């Protein structure tokens, strides 16, 4: 099928027409009456597999809110509509998206994207346009350097506190030696930077200290070293991508150390499905939420999530996302859409969330303690700190 120049031009013209049609369709679809809330989310690219836990939570909230007649904006209920774009797992795309949401789409409210780099990247944009946003899935000591005022971080999983609390927990379990493996991505590397000095201070021997790149495909070499070291605890500072690899290869090599910690991964339902229930059992990970009777709404959130999506929410990311929505809801109900008033209220009020009380000093949440959970009989239970625990820690009995 050879094409003459005319045919070619027709084909290109056809493409151009299709594209224009799509463009005009987009322009016409914008309405003004519902409450428009904008955010960016990685739907493609490297991080796309981590964002569903947050996106699902946003969707669940919107569904429930609209079922109640809409979000309470200073006394009036308005139906919620999302304006969202794919940031392709690139922080600079997120910057452009939030610029677009604020200046071009002119949304009423903003929600946070997924992940620390994205929160930090958009902070300058929020400050420039004086648009407050309650963050969620971000944790880094660098957050404290962000100028307070337009973004807040409810999580307590900040690497330096994780380092301190983890070592306290290890000391409590009489651990004398550890192996530390870390993914070089920012969050886990930060944890390593903080946990190692704490271990030394507490007199716990670090027999193996290794780092690996995020795209690692085989950990045999490193894990063989760990096996030989015969430590009491293995701290696998892994991301969801490598958490499964670690678990599978730890099983192959028979790493039967009683204390197994995997930084990120096991708080998501996916982990147990990927490695099997026996392997997932007894693994300790970072999270500070669990359905608890005294935390209002926590059980309801859990049940609603399971009902809608057929799997457990991510105990860290989904919970944080929901908390940020609760804070936003409570604020807007009182202040309406006045940005200055919103800002003032978020910075000073104590909020009730599914994770208990939350209050911000500067950008950080000062109430929720740094905590760890453990999979026990297939369910995640808070095992540290004792003040918040729903269950006691149990040593892992092999993979």
């Amino acid at each position, binding site marked *: 099928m050879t094409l003459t120049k005319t045919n070619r031009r027709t084909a290109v013209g056809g493409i151009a027409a299709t594209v224009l049609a799509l463009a005009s369709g*987009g322009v016409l679809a914008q309405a003004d009456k519902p409450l428009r809330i904008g955010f960016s989310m990685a739907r493609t690219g490297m991080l796309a597999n981590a964002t569903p836990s947050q996106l699902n939570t946003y969707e669940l909230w919107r569904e429930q809110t609209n079922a109640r007649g809409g979000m309470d904006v200073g006394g009036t209920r308005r139906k919620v509509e999302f304006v969202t774009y*794919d940031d392709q797992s*690139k922080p600079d795309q997120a910057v452009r998206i939030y610029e677009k949401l604020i200046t071009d789409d002119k949304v009423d409210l903003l929600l946070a994207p997924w992940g620390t780099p994205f929160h930090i990247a958009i902070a300058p944009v929020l400050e420039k346009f004086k648009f407050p946003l309650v963050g969620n899935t971000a944790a880094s000591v660098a957050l404290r350097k962000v100028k307070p005022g337009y973004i807040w971080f409810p999580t307590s999983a900040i690497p330096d506190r994780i380092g301190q609390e983890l070592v306290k927990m290890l000391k409590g379990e009489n651990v004398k030696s550890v192996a530390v493996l870390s993914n070089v991505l920012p969050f886990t590397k930060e944890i390593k930077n903080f946990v190692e000095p704490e271990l030394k201070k507490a007199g716990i021997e670090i027999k193996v200290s290794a780092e690996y790149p995020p795209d690692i495909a085989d950990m045999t070499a490193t894990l063989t070293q760990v096996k030989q070291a015969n430590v009491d605890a293995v701290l696998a500072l892994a991301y969801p991508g490598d958490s499964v690899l670690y678990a599978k290869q730890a099983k192959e090599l028979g790493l039967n150390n009683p204390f197994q910690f995997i930084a990120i991964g096991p708080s998501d339902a996916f982990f147990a499905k990927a490695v099997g229930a026996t392997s997932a059992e007894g693994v300790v990970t970072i999270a500070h939420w669990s359905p608890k009777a005294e935390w209002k709404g926590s059980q309801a959130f859990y049940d609603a999530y399971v009902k809608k999506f057929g799997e457990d929410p991510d105990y860290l990311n989904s919970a944080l996302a929901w908390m940020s929505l609760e804070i936003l809801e409570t604020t807007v109900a009182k202040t309406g859409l006045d940005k200055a008033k919103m800002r003032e209220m978020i910075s000073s009020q104590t909020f009730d969330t599914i994770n208990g009380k939350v209050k911000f000093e500067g950008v950080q949440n000062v109430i929720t303690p740094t905590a760890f959970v453990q999979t026990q009989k297939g369910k995640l239970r808070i095992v540290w700190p004792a003040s918040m625990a729903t269950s006691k820690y149990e040593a892992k009995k092999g993979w």
Partner: protein
Amino acid sequence: MKDLFPNRWWTLLWACCLLALAVLPFVANAYVVGIGLTVLMWIALTQSWCVLSKMTGYVSLGHVVFYGIGAYLVVVTWQEVPLPLAIVGAGLLAALVAALVGLPVLRVRGPYFVILTFGLAELVKYTITWIESASGMASRILFGAPDLPVIYFSMFALALLSVAMLTWVSSSRFGHGLRSLRENEEAAETLGVPVVRYKLIAFVLGAAIPGMVGAIMALRSTYFVVGQVFDPMISVTVIAMAILGGGDNARGPLLGVIFLSLLSELLWVNAPLLYLVILGAILMVFVLVVPNGLLGLFERKPVPVVERPPTDSAA
């Protein structure tokens, strides 16, 4: 100059584009200015890529390495070295790296060269990753970066510079030498073209601007993670834009950049879930249906009898 402005229609087109881009920050909102910035960035990257790859036929799949090196320099010297110095330094550093590795790298030909350049970019990426983690750095954040208009106009200057460079190379004797070695390197050498020197010069020339582009874009996203700065997709996109634009001069790639970046933006905004699929399909359709690129579509150049593919007569 004939290369860029062969007739008054082209001159008019470029004048309009230039004007539009120049006034953008004064008339449009931050989002639209962002699009303009993106277009300028791709212009600078693609034109500089063409200096080597289009002219000599040595297709480089590692153009992002210079971009990344430039970005890294700025990040590492942040607030210790005045910014303009760092940016110029970034360009010089990238050119230096090109000069150092150019001779052995350019001995490799064809598809081997393609993958070698890719491997080189990845090697630099992982080396920097290793250096960063060995020095305890988890990530780098640039607080206090300049505003969008400053970034925009710096990029504007770079884009102009790159267009000027490609135009000059394309219509100079140097450029003709490059084209001759593309057609047949051995023959060109026999005829007296200093092949090795020319290739190296083209390589170094093409490296300086991406270095500065990377430096400036680091200021835009302010959060530096090695893996995302040395993104192979940047290299691939540059190739896509150059090929879609077509032609053997400075005009083609400009068309390609404008077309692809505006198309991507349009699709991304309006068909957010589907847009990459559609984009991929459009790329494929283009290569099959319009193999001479956009320039080939708009310009009816008489095809020499020798080159005309036999199937045309059947049409």
